[in-house]
């Protein structure tokens, strides 16, 4: 039909989105956002035994300007929330957030006034990782699932459409406070 048939053998074609996704997923630069005990497991993941360097992300950047993945490891207190948002805003696009551990994901067992009940109240979260704290394998598994998501993410106009679709979907969704009856 098109270009595919006129090509000599040994030439592969792909999409710009596919290539961009491949490069993006293979070069995550995580920002350190260790807030509690999960940070210990996050550091272990970067260490020699679990070695995140196998996936090209052993350098945890202390500066958000050079990072594109924020691993929120630990409970986010109300006082930390604006700091977290500022760090997120300082990261250049494209950027992703991984909520590591139950405290970052939903507040966990700290259901009280001091802790933000899920970091998705402050920043958009791409991957939730349960566990208290999650073992390094769980973190690596979450990162690999995020890799998969990044590989299949869209670019340009498609990305804008995707975002507006998600937004209208979220606006039209039934609020949790209106869900009635048996919870099943």
């Amino acid at each position, binding site marked *: 039909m098109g270009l595919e048939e006129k090509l000599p053998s040994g030439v592969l074609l792909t999409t710009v989105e596919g290539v961009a996704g491949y490069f993006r997923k293979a070069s995550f630069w995580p920002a350190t956002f260790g807030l509690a005990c999960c940070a210990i497991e996050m550091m272990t993941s970067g260490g020699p*035994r679990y*070695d995140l360097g196998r996936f090209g992300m052993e350098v945890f950047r202390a500066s958000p300007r050079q990072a594109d993945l924020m691993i929120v490891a630990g409970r986010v207190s109300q006082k930390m929330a604006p700091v977290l948002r500022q760090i997120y805003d300082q990261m250049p696009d494209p950027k992703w957030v991984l909520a590591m551990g139950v405290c970052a994901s*939903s507040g*966990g067992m700290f259901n009280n006034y001091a802790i933000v009940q899920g970091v998705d109240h402050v920043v958009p979260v791409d991957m*939730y*990782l*349960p566990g*208290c704290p999650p073992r390094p394998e769980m973190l690596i598994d979450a990162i690999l699932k995020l890799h998969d998501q990044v590989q299949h993410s869209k670019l340009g106009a498609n990305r804008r459409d995707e975002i507006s679709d998600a937004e209208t979907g979220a606006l039209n969704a039934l609020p949790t406070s209106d869900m009635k009856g048996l919870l*099943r």
Partner: protein
Amino acid sequence: MPTLKEQFWDPVAGFGVTFRTMFKKVVTEQYPFDKKPTAPRFHGRHQLNRWPDGLEKCIGCELCAWACPADAIYVEGASNTEDERYSPGERYGRVYQINYLRCILCGLCIEACPTRALTMTNEYELADNNRADLIYEKQDLLAPLLPGMEQPPHPMLLGDDDGDYYRGNLRPRTAETHESEEHR
């Protein structure tokens, strides 16, 4: 004035550790490709167990929900009837939800369970990209049907009443009981 040893030998001696490490076995675990088993009593995802005939062990008593320090478990019990029996005895758990974004995998629910219906598996790959999918429902938590088990609801096949089940007076599944099942 540093001594001769401090000037020349000490800087080299520091590299001795690096040099020796080159001959040591590599400790890195190749996690997603070569999964090392966890400790046998590792606290992973929960499982709702079954009796050998397939009836559920959960009686919907909510003791797990009461024991949970993070309020991660939601249980609604309902009564068994003669036509529709899910567990031996009067009650069964109709709705069983565990919110893995709250659950800290502490195992207090397992200690609280009076019928050993709730135990923990070694499965730990739980990460997901939205909060709703991380609330595991009863069908996600129930143990798979092993050979010889039947999908409930069905009558008690291994005893005359729930006392037989709990005292361990289980009669073996004979050809006769199998036949009666087929005629049912």
